[in-house]
C-alpha cells in the first residue's frame, strides 16, 4: 500500500489543508451553521467536543444510528458492554453466573449505581425496561422473547432460557437496551439515566451538552463537560475537526482518514470490525441457482484488490462469509482463497449453459463505498463475461424491501459482537433476512449446532465448516470487513474506540 501512498507523498499539512479546504468548501451545503455559531474554535480544558451526524430519534425502541446510540450511551448504561475484541465487559450487571445446563443466567445488579434523579438502581428498573421493550415488539423483543426474566434474591436478575444459547449474554449488550428507571415517562425526550453524563441541553439539529455525573458508579469522568455537535454531513464534521472546533470524530470515510493518518496534529485510530459489505446472488432462481454460476462469480473476483482500492487497506479482506478476523479463532485464517481466474470463470459459465456470459443488473444502495464497490466488481467481472449494469437505489428505499428480492445486489452489514446473529437472520433456510434465499441442508445443520452448543470446540468446528462451504459455493462474496475510525485532536487521550462508534464511552477521556 505504501507505494500507492507515495504518489500523494509530499502532502504537507499546508497542502493538505489547501486541498482539503477547497474540497470542503466545494461541498454543496456542507457547512451547517448552527453548531459552529458561537463556538470560538478554541478548546476549553475539561470539555470534550464530539462531532456526530444529526440524530433522528432518541427513543430507545427505534434509535439505531451512531449519534443516537451515543447520546443514549452517555446518559444511560447497559447491563453489559463489549470491548473491541468482542469480550463481554460488566456494566450495570457487575457479575454473572451460568448454570451447568446453560439454561439459567443469574446477573448481579450493582448496588452503587444511581439515577441522575438520585434514586438507586434496582433490579425492578431492569425488569421494567425489559418488559417495556418486549411490549414494544421491536428488535429487542425478538432477542429476548425466548427467555423469561425474574428478580432474584439480593438484587439479582434471573434469566431462564428454553434452550441453550452460548451467545445469549450478547443479546443483553444490544444498542437499544439502555436501562431506564421503572415507570419512566417521556422516554426519548427526558433522560433520567445512570450514565456517566447528565444531559444539560439538547438542541435538535444543533448540539447536545452534558455535564459530568460526579457520582458515577465507575468513577466521575475526567472531563467536566461533554458536547455533541451535530452536522448534516460527514464533510462538515471533518472540517470541524480540521478547524479545531471539535475534538473527536468517530466515523469518517477512508479517504479522509487516510489524510489524517499522515498528520501529526491528530491521532488517527482504526480498529477492525465485523461489519462487512457483500454482494449476493439469489441462490433459488436463475442463474444463481446453478452452483457453477456462483463459483464463476467468485473466481472472477479479486477480493484483495477490492479491499485495497475501496477500503484503502483499512479493515480486513473477507472470505465470503460473515466471519472475519474480528472473530478470532472462528475465522478460517489458514484457508486460502482461490486466486482470481477470469478465464476459468468464463468456462464455468459456459458449462452452466451461458456461453455468452451473463447480463445482469446489480442493485446498489447509493451511499458510502457501495457505488465504488459496484464499479470495481463490474470491472473485474467483465473480463469473465459477466456484464452488469449498475442500478443505484436510494438507500432507504432499497432497504425497505428491494434488497431481499433482487437477483443480484450489494448489501452492507453492520458489526455484531458474535457471528451467530448473521447466520440466524440471513443464511438459515427461510430466515427473515435471507436476501440470497440460500438453502443448504448441511449449513442449516451447522447453524443449529452452533446456536446452542456450549462446547467451544464444537462451535468452532461448526463455524469453520460453514465458512468453507460458503467459500466454495455460497451465494455471497464478502470482499472485505471495514474498519471503524476515530480521529482526535491534540490533547485528547483515553478514548477506547468501539466497533459500533456510538458505544464509545467518553467517561475515560482526558482533555489536556
Amino acid at each position, binding site marked *: 500500500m505504501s507505494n*500507492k501512498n507515495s504518489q500523494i507523498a509530499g502532502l504537507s499539512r499546508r497542502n493538505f489543508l489547501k486541498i482539503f479546504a477547497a474540497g470542503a468548501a466545494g461541498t454543496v451545503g456542507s457547512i451547517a451553521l448552527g453548531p459552529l455559531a458561537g463556538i470560538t474554535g478554541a478548546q476549553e480544558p475539561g470539555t470534550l467536543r464530539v462531532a456526530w451526524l444529526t440524530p433522528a430519534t432518541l427513543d430507545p425502541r427505534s434509535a439505531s444510528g451512531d449519534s443516537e446510540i451515543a447520546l443514549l450511551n452517555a446518559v444511560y448504561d447497559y447491563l453489559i458492554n463489549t470491548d473491541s475484541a468482542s469480550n463481554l465487559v460488566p456494566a450495570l450487571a457487575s457479575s454473572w453466573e451460568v448454570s451447568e445446563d446453560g439454561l439459567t443466567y443469574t446477573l448481579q445488579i450493582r448496588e452503587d449505581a444511581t439515577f441522575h434523579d438520585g434514586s438507586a438502581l434496582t433490579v425492578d428498573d431492569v425488569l421494567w425496561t425489559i418488559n417495556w421493550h418486549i411490549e414494544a415488539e421491536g428488535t429487542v423483543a425478538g432477542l429476548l422473547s425466548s427467555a423469561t426474566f425474574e428478580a432474584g434474591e439480593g438484587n439479582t436478575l434471573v434469566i431462564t432460557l428454553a434452550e441453550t444459547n452460548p451467545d445469549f449474554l450478547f443479546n443483553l449488550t444490544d444498542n437499544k437496551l439502555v436501562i431506564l428507571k421503572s415507570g419512566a415517562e417521556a422516554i426519548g425526550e427526558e433522560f433520567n439515566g445512570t450514565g456517566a453524563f447528565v444531559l444539560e441541553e439538547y438542541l435538535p439539529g444543533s448540539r447536545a451538552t452534558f455535564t459530568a455525573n460526579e457520582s458515577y458508579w465507575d468513577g466521575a469522568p475526567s472531563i467536566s463537560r461533554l458536547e455533541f455537535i451535530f452536522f448534516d454531513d460527514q464533510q462538515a464534521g*471533518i472540517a470541524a475537526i480540521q478547524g479545531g472546533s471539535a475534538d473527536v470524530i468517530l466515523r469518517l*470515510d477512508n*479517504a*479522509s482518514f487516510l489524510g489524517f493518518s499522515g498528520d501529526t496534529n491528530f491521532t488517527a485510530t482504526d480498529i477492525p470490525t465485523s461489519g462487512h459489505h457483500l454482494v449476493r446472488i439469489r441462490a433459488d432462481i436463475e442463474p444463481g441457482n446453478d452452483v457453477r454460476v456462483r463459483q464463476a462469480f467468485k473466481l472472477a473476483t479479486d477480493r484483495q484488490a477490492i479491499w485495497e482500492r475501496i477500503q484503502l487497506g483499512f479493515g480486513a479482506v473477507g472470505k465470503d462469509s460473515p466471519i472475519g478476523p474480528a472473530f478470532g479463532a472462528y475465522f478460517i485464517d489458514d484457508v486460502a482463497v482461490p486466486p482470481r481466474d477470469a478465464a476459468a470463470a468464463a468456462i464455468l459459465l459456459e458449462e452452466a449453459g451461458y456461453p455468452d456470459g451473463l447480463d445482469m443488473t446489480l442493485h446498489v444502495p447509493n451511499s458510502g463505498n457501495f457505488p465504488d464497490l459496484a464499479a*470495481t466488481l463490474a*470491472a473485474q467481472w467483465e473480463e469473465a463475461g459477466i456484464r452488469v449494469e*449498475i442500478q443505484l437505489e436510494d438507500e432507504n428505499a432499497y432497504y425497505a424491501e428491494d434488497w431481499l428480492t433482487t437477483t443480484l445486489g450489494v448489501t452492507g452489514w453492520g458489526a455484531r459482537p458474535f457471528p451467530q446473529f448473521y447466520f440466524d437472520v440471513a443464511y438459515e433456510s427461510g430466515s427473515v433476512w435471507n436476501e440470497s434465499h440460500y438453502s443448504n441442508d448441511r449449513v442449516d445443520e451447522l447453524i443449529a449446532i452452533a446456536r446452542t452448543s456450549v462446547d467451544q470446540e464444537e462451535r468452532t468446528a461448526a463455524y469453520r465448516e460453514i465458512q468453507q462451504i460458503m467459500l466454495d459455493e455460497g451465494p455471497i462474496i464478502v470482499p472485505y470487513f471495514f474498519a471503524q475510525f476515530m480521529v482526535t485532536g491534540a490533547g485528547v487521550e483515553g478514548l477506547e474506540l468501539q466497533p459500533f462508534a456510538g458505544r464509545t464511552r467518553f467517561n475515560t477521556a482526558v482533555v489536556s
Partner: protein
Amino acid sequence: MNNLQTTSGRQIKAMLKFFRDLMSQPLSAIGTVIVLFFLFLAIFGTQLAPYPNPNDQSHDVRLEPTINITKLQLGDYPFGTDRLGRDVFSRVILGTSSIFRTAGLGTLIAVIFGTILGLFMGYSGGLIDEILGRIIDAMLALPALLLALVLIGIVQNLDFEPGTWQSSLGDNAVLLVIAILYVPIVARVVRSTTLDIKTREFVEAAIIRGENASYIMFREILPSVIPSLVVEASLRFSYAIFLVASLGFLGFGASPTSPDWGYMVNDNRGGFYALTPWALEYPAMAIALLVIGVNLMSDGIKRIVQKGD
C-alpha cells in the same frame, strides 16, 4: 421541384456563408471551434480515448496527471487516474458523447415539439392560446432544476417491464426530462414570432387563398420563425448541457461506471477530493468549457440572425 440543383446549391451556399460569418468574429469563432472540437470527441470518442472502456480499472490508482502544457506533452495519464485506477483522460473524452447525445437529442425534441406547439398557439389565438399559455407560465414559474427533479422522480418511479419501450423511457429519463422542460420555453419564443408574422400580408394572402391552418403554419409562417428558433435552440442546448451535468451530479441518468461528467464531479468530492483532485477538476473544466463554447457560439448565431433580418 425544378432546378433542384440550384435550390440546394443555394442552401449549401447559405450554410457556408453562415459558417463564415460565425467564424468572422473572434469570440463566436472561439465558441464554434470549442463546440466542433467537442462534437468531434463525441463522435470519435471511442477511437480517440486511450482506454475506451470507461470502467477500465487496470491502472495504478491515484496517479497524478502527466500532462504538461508548456512542453505540449500528454504523457501516459494526461489527467491522472482516479481512486479506482481509471484513466481520467479517457473518461472525460468518453463522457462527451453521452452528454451530447442526451443534451442534444433532448433539445432537438424540445425544439420540434415546442415549435409545433408555439405555431399552434400563436396561430390559433383565443381560448386555446390562453389555456396553453397559462400552463406554460405555470411550468416556467418553477425553477428548472426543481422541475427536472420532480419529473425524473416520476419517470424513474414508474415500474416498467424491462425490454419494453416504456422501460427504455426510464433509461432515457434525463433526455425526456430535458425535452419536457424546454418545450414550453421554445413554444413561447415561437409563439411570439408567430404572432408577429401572422400579421404580414403574405400570410393574409394565404388565408385568402383558402389555405388550411397547417399549410399556413408550416409553409408560410415557419420559415420566418426559423432564424429566431435557431438562436433559441442553440441557447437551449447550452442550458441543456448544464442541466444534464447538474442532474448527473445529483446522480440521475448516470451510474458509477458511466463517464458522466456531472457524476464524476460529484463522485470526487469530499475526502476523495483530497486524494485525487484532478478526478474532479478535469470533468468540471470540460463542463465549463463546453457550456462557454456553446454560449459564445449562440451569441454569434444571434448576431448573424438578427442582422440579417
